[in-house]
């Protein structure tokens, strides 16, 4: 287990830099994580990130892109606009969750 200093705090991350401890995350940290990957968080980003956090807490798994759109109600197109190129991984990173494992 590696740690990284993010927003002045010691945070547990995996080898790639994804957070590994659900409870170490807060919204202040998310702002820094988003900044790390060049994303300016809008209200819409926050809605999506909060959905990811809540869904993970309930199911113990990071929702896939399909789940974020089908269950969360955020259109696929919009996810690609807000989190360009690799939306599933970027959302997970900012939400302090592991990469999603599902295929679809």
């Amino acid at each position, binding site marked *: 287990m590696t740690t*990284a200093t993010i927003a002045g705090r010691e945070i547990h991350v995996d080898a*790639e*830099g994804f957070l590994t401890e659900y409870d170490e995350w807060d919204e202040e940290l998310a702002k820094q994580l988003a900044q790390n*990957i060049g994303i300016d968080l809008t209200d819409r980003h926050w809605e999506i990130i909060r959905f990811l956090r809540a869904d993970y807490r309930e199911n113990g798994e990071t929702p896939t892109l399909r789940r974020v759109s089908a*269950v969360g109600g955020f259109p696929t197109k919009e996810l*690609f606009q807000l989190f360009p*190129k*690799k939306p599933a991984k970027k959302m997970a990173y900012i939400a302090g969750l592991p990469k999603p494992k599902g*295929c679809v």
Partner: protein
Amino acid sequence: MTTTEQEPRLIPDFGEDTDRKMAFIASKGTLDMAYPALIMANAALGEGIEAHIFFTFWGLDMINKKTMHDLKFTPLGNPATHMPQGLGGLPGMTAMATHMMKKQIAELGVPEVPEFLQMIVDAGGHLWACKMSADMMGLGEDDLFDGVEGILSATEFIELTDGAQIIFI
């Protein structure tokens, strides 16, 4: 070899400048063989990779408005179902097997074929129909799913996929 000059990189590398490109040739029209191209193309798009699907021969059933909602799976002649082969030919067996497979797919949260195609288009994927197959089956653009960008000849497909990794299904 290790060096001590650098801290390990702790921001994930989202490798956004990839020029990787993938093209899937979907040549089958059965329910079970419709999914591989859809799942892989969708995964590629989620990784920021340019993805194309070229529907040819029976694969056109996946984008034909008349058939796309009604693809079937049959255990007949498919030893991988591990059912006695005689059973596969019984009346109603294809309908039952199709129903079961659709249920299993839905339980995984995976959409049906038309919705999956729309999801791929929304993710920036490109859908193409094969000209010779469309001509054989008497299909024009109006007969095809709206997300299909065009009907391409084999040559046009080869030009379009210059530098792509091509996967035939």
